[in-house]
Every structure is written in C-alpha cells, then in structure tokens.
C-alpha cells in the first residue's frame, strides 16, 4: 500500500504519528474560520481534516460501511443519589424536578456525541496497537501486523483490519515495540555495531579457513589412490562440512569470549550512564519497587558469575597495553579511568560521543554523589565477588545504588539491537503518550486487552481526536449522507 500520509507544512494535516513534523503541525493548529463557508464546504473541510487523522489507511468506501450514526455513551450513576431518590423527585413538579436553588442544582455537562464519529475505527487492530503506545504511528502498527509480529488471543493475526472484540488480548513482539518507541541509533552507535559485526565475521572466516586446511591435510593423508578420490568425492564433502561445522561451533565459543570482553566494557560504560541518569532524576516511579530486593541479590550473584570472564578481559587489556605504543596506552588509560570513576561524566562522554545533549543535561542537574556511594558503585561493578560494603552509605544512597544496579541489568548496552542502547524513549514521544481507557495495557510484556468499546460520557469522549466538537460535528453530518 502506497503511503499517501505525508506530513506537509504547507497544507498541514494531523496524522496518527509521533513525528516532530506532526507535533509542529499539531501545535500550530487553529480553529477553522468557517464563517464564510457554505454548509457543504464546512462539512467537506471538516471531513477531510478528520479523515486525514482517523483511518487514512482505510478506503473511504470501507469506512462509510463502518460508520454508524448511533454513538455509544454511558451515564455515570451515583449510588448515594440513587438510594436517596427513586426517580420521583426528578419527575416532580412539571416533570423536571422541583425548582432547586443554585447550589443544589446538579450541573450536567453535555456529552460530546459527535466526537465519537470515528469510534468504529478504534476497533481496528492497527489503530489499537498505536493507541496502546506499541508503535510510533498507525502505519508502523500496520506493518507490524502484516509482518507477523502481532498475535490476537495467542494466535498470529495478519490482518490490520481485524476488528477487536471486547476481551480480545493482543500482543506485539517486545523487540519491535522497543524499536518503534526507542530512540534511533546515531552514527557512532551504528559504526560500533558494524565494527563488532565485522570482527565476528573475520574471526569466523579465519576459523573456517583453518578448519578447511586441516580437512585438506587429513584428506591427503587418508586417501592413497586417485580413483578413490574421485569415487569418494561425495562422502568427502560431507566429512568436510561436518568438520567445518565443528570448527564453527568452536569458533563461536571462542568468539563469545571476545564478545564478552567487549560487552563487559560497554556494560560498564552503560552502567555509568545509568547511574548518572538515576542521580539526575529527583524521583523515579515505583515501577519495580516491589521486587527490588530480590533483583538486587540476583544481580549481585550475576555479577559474581560473570567475574571470571571479565578477569580475562582485563588481562587481555593489560597485554595490549604493553604491546601497543605510548599513545595507545595513554588513551587506554584514560578510558580505564573513565570506566573506573563513576563521577567523571565529561571524560566518559569524551570517550563515547553518543547522546551528547542528554549527557550534558544529565551532568548539568546532577547532584554530586558522595565518595562513599561512588566507592560502593566501584565495588559493585569492579569487584562484585566481595560483599558490597554498605556500612558507610545512608539509606537513600543504598536505594540509589540498588536502582542503578537494577537499571543496569534491565537496560544493558547491546550494539546488536536496532535501537540506541541503553534504551530511552524516542524524542517527542511524551507529547503523544496517553492510553485511552478502553484498553488495558501491560507494558512489560507488550500486551493489551481491548476491554470494551470506546464510549462518550458527559463532558468527555474516549476517542482521541485532535479536533474540537465543531469540526467533529461537521464530519458526523457529512457521513449522515444528507448533504
């Protein structure tokens, strides 16, 4: 399907998307000047504006079939009031209740029925995925569905136009969600990933070559006559491939060691960043306050287990330092300092130029951590075999340490991911972040339940639309087909 949903500046249309163009268009959106328009023109413009936002991926005829002039609405009832009055007081007098004084009168807000014009489209799977904040636009949500990353009630659903029923649970692959909502990689991140990939490929090729040579030698030794050579060409090939496979397996294991070492370094860097972010934040939500204790002990054991591999990495590092020239050792030393000292954001930033703006911001509002805390961080990261000495820390500091460790574990640096790591939300996401009540979302597993159909209630409509009631009314009247 061709994407006609462009975001232009000249004739701005609001789309279901988190792009900055859309944000800019949304903030400069003003009420339409309808005074000079005919009624038909008003309806037409209202319809074209709203349709650009609601289901632009749906054909007009398709949408016209979906449109329903009946709007679902609810009236919130107060049991206390119902207990006090069986309805006769409301019907008293001339049928609208006895005259009440100003204070007693219950001011009921009007229900914005026409804002619910596009409610049937909210049932669509792609729209629901966008509304659950699993994709950065409806188009992207649609792509996720078509590419098979979405399940409904545990079964793969390939139709973006599937209309969800109340109680349906849909799930999106968490990796895709992280990619869709996370900040993109910058060129440094991409380069790093490329280099790592290249290194891995090189090591693999070398191992394969070695294995091939060995196999050839063996073949020469084994085979005496040329006849047998020609005859046994097929089984030989199979033997070769078997040997290659064994070599590859070995290679992967060897490869893993080097990867571990590199990753270790990156993890340390990521940890520093995480710590800095924790420090800069005055309050962090209690998303995981419940099982922090367990996670803390877990991460400590994890760190213990990983210690051996890191030792190897350190050994290698020292070896390379001795072999390389003085300049190289200098840079290595600075890097090592950076990794050791959690309190040196500038040098760390210099060693890794990614996310400069954020780093600067973090450095700007950073409360200086105490020496004891940094010492504890160092212990926790560099020397995890020992118990972390917590005696000198205050309770808040211990808390910070825990949070930082948890964050390090949950949000590691991993160049193989298609998004910037450690993960952070993409720019301008917060300006579009809301979850309507007809969905119940569990972000941890990227699953959501379509609880019920969207409804209107006094003073409130559940269908998210950027336009006011006047425009929505125009669109509603357009689809009533009495032009």
């Amino acid at each position: 399907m061709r994407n006609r949903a462009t975001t232009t500046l000249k004739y701005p249309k609001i789309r279901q998307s988190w792009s900055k163009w859309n944000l800019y268009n949304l903030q400069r959106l003003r009420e339409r000047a309808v005074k000079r328009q005919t009624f038909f023109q008003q309806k037409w413009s209202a319809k074209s504006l709203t349709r650009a936002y609601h289901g632009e991926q749906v054909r007009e005829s398709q949408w016209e079939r979906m449109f329903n002039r009946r709007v679902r609405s609810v009236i919130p009832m107060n049991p206390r009031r119902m207990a006090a009055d069986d309805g006769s007081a409301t019907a008293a007098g001339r049928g609208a209740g006895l005259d009440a004084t100003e204070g007693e009168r219950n001011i009921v807000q009007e229900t914005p029925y026409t804002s619910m014009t596009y409610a049937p489209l909210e049932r669509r799977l792609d729209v629901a995925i966008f509304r659950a904040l699993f994709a950065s636009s409806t188009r992207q949500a649609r792509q996720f569905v078509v590419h098979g990353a979405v399940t409904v009630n545990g079964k793969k659903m390939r139709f973006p136009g599937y209309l969800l029923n109340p109680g349906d649970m849909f799930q999106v692959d968490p990796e895709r969600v992280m990619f869709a909502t996370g900040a993109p990689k910058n060129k440094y991140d991409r380069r790093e990933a490329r280099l790592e990939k290249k290194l891995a490929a090189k090591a693999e090729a070398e191992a394969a070559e070695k294995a091939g040579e060995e196999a050839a030698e063996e073949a020469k030794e084994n085979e005496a006559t040329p006849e047998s050579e020609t005859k046994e060409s097929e089984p030989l090939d199979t033997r070769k491939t078997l040997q290659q496979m064994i070599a590859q397996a070995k290679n992967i294991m060897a490869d893993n060691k080097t990867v571990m070492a590199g990753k270790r370094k990156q993890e340390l860097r990521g940890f520093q960043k995480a710590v800095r972010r924790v420090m800069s934040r005055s309050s962090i939500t209690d998303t995981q306050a419940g099982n922090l204790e367990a996670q803390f002990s877990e991460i400590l054991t994890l760190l213990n287990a990983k210690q051996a591999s890191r030792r190897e990495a350190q050994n290698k590092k020292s070896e390379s330092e001795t072999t390389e020239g003085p300049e190289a050792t200098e840079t290595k030393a600075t890097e090592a300092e950076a990794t050791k000292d959690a309190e040196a954001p500038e040098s760390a930033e210099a060693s890794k130029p990614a996310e400069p703006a954020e780093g600067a911001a973090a450095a700007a509002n950073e409360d200086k951590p105490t020496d004891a805390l940094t010492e504890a961080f160092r212990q926790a990261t560099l020397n995890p075999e020992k118990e972390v000495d917590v005696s000198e820390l205050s309770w808040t500091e211990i808390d910070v340490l825990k949070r930082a460790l948890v964050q390090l574990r949950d949000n590691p640096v991993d160049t193989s991911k298609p998004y910037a790591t450690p993960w952070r939300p993409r720019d301008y996401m917060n300006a579009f972040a809301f979850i309507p009540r007809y969905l119940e979302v569990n972000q941890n597993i990227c699953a959501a339940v379509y609880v019920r159909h969207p409804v209107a209630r006094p003073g409130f409509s559940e269908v998210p639309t950027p336009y006011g009631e006047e425009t929505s009314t125009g669109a509603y009247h357009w689809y009533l087909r009495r032009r």
Partner: protein
Amino acid sequence: MPPRIHSQIIPNSLLSCRSSASQTSTHSSLPSPSCAPLSKLSCSRHSTPSAPHLPQQSSRSFSSTPTTQTRLRETMFQWLTTEGSELKSHIPGTTNYITDGRNRKKFGPEGLPGDSKPFPLNPHFKSERILSEELRNDIYQRVVVKKQSVRAVSTDTGVDMRRVAAVCRLVELENQWREQGKPLALPYARAVHEMVPTTKLQRDARLQRERPHEQINDLPAHRLTDAQIFYPVSESRQFTRVDAGRVFSAAPARLRGDDQGDQPWEVVRDLNLGERRIEAVGKGDGEQRVLQPADVRIPHPHLITLESERAANPDSLRDVWRAHEKRLKEGNEAEEKRKQRKQEARDRQVFRIQPKSSRFEFRIKDVVVSKETTGTDGRNAKAPGRRYGVPRSDRKKGQVKIPTHVLV
C-alpha cells in the same frame, strides 16, 4: 505570450522553469535567444507564488543553487529548537503535552496540575490515569491468590470489573514470561509509567475506595431511551425510574403494589437464579423485554442498598458492612449458578464424540429447521450444508475474509 507556456518544462535547456530569479550568474554566460525571454517569463510567473517560501536572507549570498529550506521549514526548526525543545524528553511523574507547555508559560513552572489534555483544540479528550504496577499486582493478588470476588475487588479498588479481569489475565501472562525467562520490555514500561498519569496503590483501604481509578457504576445508554417522550402524569403520582422504563418500552403502566419494596440487588439475584423473568411486551418479531430501571442495569446494584442502609443506620456501620458482605456473597453465588446453567444448556445442544484413535473431537449440533434459520425453501443463507443454486459464501461478492473473532 500564451498563458500555458509557463507550465512547460523545457527539455535540453539549462533554464528550467523551476529556477529561481536569482539564478543568473551561471546562465548569463550561455545566452540562447530562444530561451532567454521564455525563461524570464516562466521565472517571473513561478517566483511570485513561491516567493514567501524562499528564505529571505540566504547564508550563502553568492551561491546560485536554490536552497531547499523553505521558510516553513525554517520556522518549524526554529520552533523545535526553542519552544518545542521542552517537549523533546519527558519529565518523570508529570505529563508533558503541548497544552502543558502552554500552561507552564501562562501559570508558571508548575503549570495546571490535573489538566492533561494532549490535543490543544479538543477540550473533550483528557489523558486518563492508568493503573500503576503496584495496584495491578495488588488486584492480581486479591483475585487470584486470595480468591476474592471480582465484584468486591472492583468496588474496593475503584476499577471496572472488566478491567479487573483483563489485569488478571495480563499479570498471569507476565508471570509466565518471567518464569520462562523471556525478555521483557522493562525500560519501556518504566518510561511509559513516567510519562502517563497513574493511579497509585493506597495503603489505606478507605482512601483507595474514596479515590477510585474510574467510574465503576456506568449506565450504558439504552437505545430505547433515545426517543424523547411526552408522557403526562398527574402531579400526585409517584413516578419512579421503574415507570420511566415502562414508558420507554411502551409497556402498560404498572398496577399499584407491583414489585414494590424489592431492592435492586434482589432483583438481579432472582434474575440470575432464574426465579424471576423480565416481562416482555409486543408480539412476534416486535417482542421486546421491558426496559429495567437504572438501579438494576448498573454494574453494582448492591451499592444502592449499602448507601441507603448507611444513611439509615449511621451508628452501626459495622453491621451494615457485614450485611453488605453477606449480600455480595449471595449475589456471587447466584451469578455462578447462572453461568453454570448457561454452560449446561450449551453442552446439551452439542453432541461430542472423541474416537480413541483420533486426536480430534467431533462436535455435532442439531439443525433447527425453521423460517428464521433455513427459510421456507431451505436455502437460506444460514441453512447448513451445500444447497443447490446457492454459491459458497467465500465465492460471493463482497465477502470479507478477515476473521471476525479469535477464540481464546
């Protein structure tokens, strides 16, 4: 000059009609008599509408290449670097919508707390609170571990019953994932909970009840109540919600002494137990059940009784609550019975066969031959089997093949 010339793009010429008026230095050295006047015209025609979109002062004054940056783009990026930069990253604990930025400008750095409207032009849409992780886990604990009824949990936490069910499903799935060691989107979850307003778990049960997450007693607007009916009633008559329902469904006025004094929760319980039937009016296709009063149709009818008892006995609240719990229990039992009855009725219709050697279960349902199902000639769309002259539904025009439901 004929007016259509300006819309032509001239092939093999250095002067395309897209060139801007300032673009002269390179072309003046290559004068071609046929092109020059033409291009002049085309340029003048074209530059007038696009003039406001050109940057007023180019940073490269001697360059002949037209810049791609229009004025619109320039203003956009200017906004993004000044006002828009506030919206770039979120502020943990508060929302950060366009309206929030404007409120901050207007009312100071705090803005207007509680005014979370993502769309500046739509005052009717508000970003509503979502359940915090603790509250979600608490609901799961209550329902699944402590085996409390969904209805009780719903009234205690102020969360809709359907949402309670959804939360239990989702948390159950999350626990499964954790057990299996599947990677979770934890940083994403944390970020979303920081951006969107959340309902916190209150340590005090009473506080939790007084600050509900959402309205739990929503009455869905029935289509019978759409009509505006003028129904004259004498002033001396006690015209209640029950009477209003009868008027809306065109049922005869009830006699004095009918159904008086029945509490709404009792009505619901009796309906669930099958001891009471809703009266029907009309005949044949036009038959419909009488619209019940709002007291019966709301999700928590027992709360009305609780409130009236609380108002009547403010001194012995403990007894009131005890009686309330008893009623809840009774109501739940009745509901369970109704579900059981329904399931039994469904099972009675289906005949199941599972051969020992087969991995399939065959479910056989009897055909109902009637005017509604198979039609007079037996060829109705809903009739089972192959019917002569009736194409299969997947061969018909306009049949949508997207599934309409997915069984859990």
